[in-house]
């Protein structure tokens, strides 16, 4: 229905009072309070996120489902062919040692490289007596390269249980009958001989002029060496300066052919005095000769 009062021109609204009501004034003041603004901008959203997470993860089933999913994804990634190890190669080991290493590692190939614990494998390989050091790395193409440095036998050590091979550091390498020797090795015996391998090697080198006469070295009382010759004769070396003492003996051999004489043992333990033990027959001869050569006038001995 049209209003009866005609209005001309634009109808002006009465001017609105711009004054805020007391509640809008208070609300605006509250909004402008710094701590309130900070709470609403940072505190409340973070609180909501934390609450939502807590609500979601509060359920045991949800947690296990998430954990399983994570494990599954992880498994999928690990099983990709890029990470698979298909082959293992051993370098620098003899076939027997290679077989030993394969037995020790006993990998079920192919295997994911995430499941390989290279440090543990290396410890296991190095625990083998024939292996000095081992170096493992996974190369491209799923190849596990094992580089091995074998222990080199330096001595044959005669023990009560049998003869074994030890290397230059005294470590056990193998039994004497377990592997063929590539070259003749010096033989030693006696308790504690494996701890002074280098001295034994030096004495053996010094005794090389003896040639086939040398049978081996015996460690006496874990203290000093005896050189044992093929016919059971012994050269008793002192604790200190064993090599020099042996050299003196060899010099005597050169000058006086002492070893071709009838001596049982040459005692060099006291460096000031060389003592020889004659065989019983030689001793008898010596006594006889002395009796013959005794001068009746002076009673002096000659020779």
């Amino acid at each position, binding site marked *: 229905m049209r209003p009866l009062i005609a209005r001309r021109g634009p109808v002006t609204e009465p001017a609105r009072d711009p004054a805020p009501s*007391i509640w809008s*004034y208070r609300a*605006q003041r509250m909004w*402008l309070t710094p701590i309130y603004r900070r709470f609403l901008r940072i505190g409340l959203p973070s609180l909501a996120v934390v609450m939502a997470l807590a609500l979601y993860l509060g359920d045991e089933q949800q947690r296990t489902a998430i954990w399983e999913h994570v494990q599954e994804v992880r498994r999928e990634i690990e099983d990709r062919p890029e990470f698979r190890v298909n082959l293992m190669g051993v370098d620098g080991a003899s076939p027997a040692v290679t077989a030993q290493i394969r037995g020790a590692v006993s990998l079920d190939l192919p295997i994911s490289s995430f499941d390989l614990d290279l440090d543990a494998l290396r410890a296991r390989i190095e625990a083998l007596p024939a292996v000095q050091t081992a170096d493992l790395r996974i190369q491209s193409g799923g190849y596990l390269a094992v580089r091995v440095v074998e222990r080199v036998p330096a001595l044959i050590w005669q023990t009560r249980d049998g003869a074994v091979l030890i290397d230059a550091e005294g470590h056990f390498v193998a039994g004497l009958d377990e592997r063929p020797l590539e070259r003749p090795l010096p033989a030693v015996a006696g308790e504690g001989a494996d701890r002074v391998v280098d001295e034994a090697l030096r004495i053996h080198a010094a005794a090389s002029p003896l040639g086939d006469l040398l049978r081996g070295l015996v460690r006496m009382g874990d203290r000093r060496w005896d050189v044992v010759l093929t016919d059971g004769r012994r050269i008793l070396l002192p604790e200190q300066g064993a090599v020099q003492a042996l050299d003196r003996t060899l010099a005597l051999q050169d000058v006086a052919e002492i070893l071709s004489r009838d001596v049982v043992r040459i005692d060099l333990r006291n460096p000031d005095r060389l003592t020889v033990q004659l065989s019983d027959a030689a001793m008898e001869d010596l006594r006889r000769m002395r009796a013959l050569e005794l001068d009746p006038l002076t009673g002096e001995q000659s020779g």
Partner: protein
Amino acid sequence: MSMLYQSQRAMRAKRQEAMRRGVMAVLDIGTHKISCLVLRFDQKQDFVPAEGIGSMAGQSSFRVIGAATTRSRGLKFGEIDTCQETERAIRTAVQAAQKMAQTRVDHVIVSLAGARPRSYGLDGEVSLTAGTVTDADVGNVLAACDVPDLGRGREILHAQPVNFSLDNRTGLSDPRGHVGNRLSVDLHLLTIDAGAIETLLHCIKRCDLELAGLASAGYVAGVSSLVEDEQELGAACIDMGGGATSLSIFIKKHMIYADTVRMGGDHVTSDISQGLQIPMSHAERIKTRFGGVIATGMDDREIIELEGDTGDWHHDRRTATRAELIGVMRPRVEEILEEVRTRLDAAGFEHLPSQRIVLTGGASQIPGLDGLASRILGNQVRLGRPLRVQGLPQSTCGPAFSACVGLALFAAYPQDEWWDFETPSDRYPARSLKRAVKWFRENW
């Protein structure tokens, strides 16, 4: 008296708290407009005095971050007449200033123009026990001033020590550290109607604000619009507001007299409204566009259309010349200025060494007012504008805002008043524990 002392000290404590918080509002409650400035106080002083740049009256320590002005409602003669209306106006101004400042303000310093201020000059004298003047001696001498009967329902607004004398020396602004026997003080006391303060407190409280200080509009207008040498040598500041014209006399940088003439620009507007038979809003517009006080022959030919909305064709299409408008305005302006002259004469303004008069306030923008004022008040009249402070918007730089800007300066650097000094112990009520504590402190 004790109540007043305590409440003024409480306001000072609130001001300190606001300074710590760094944000304070100043609110100039006038009859024509209410304006609010939000100040931010920086702890660090990044202002460095350089060649030709002085201390800038200490205004470098704060910055205006919010300003708002609104038409005031419910005020008459600079006094709150209708509480609810005034509250709403205050809320409007504070809310807009807060919005501009983007922060909340809790502490506000208020100036008010009316409420019949009355000045008293007091003096007090004490003999000093120790040779050197200390803070306690200043407190003693301020307490020794004999306060006259202020009358019922009067409250002290300012009590500023103006001058200290020590023996035969006078003119000391700060006697502390001087040596002498007798210390005397001249105190300027300004009282206003207690009812006005109570109403104001009620309104401020209803706006959820805390009052951190009160000042007389005439005083703060003088602080901002008188230059330093005028304050030093003697000058009067006449703040011509909407409902009241405040005047304050300064010498030696202290206010020594303040008074109010209960007439202002709104009366000129109502004269125009009555004389030309037009509504008040229209009269206000005509006053600001065509107003003046000195008519020339040119003004007879300038026709002002007096539009109306009554529906009477003849009434709505009347015209008046500008000379007629000036003829309506001039007697009222003259009346105001003559009343000011009377007040100045009563205060003994002619005995001051310099008789500079500075006109400021919204009504001082009438063209030709300085010529008219120099005829009535003496020839050393100039129009004053407020000091420029940092961050003040261009729209609030005019003379209408000199009280507002002065209030900001007052908030930053209030003058020492009586309640800034400790009262001596014998002024406390007897049997008070505080009195005992104080007595112990003074004697041991």
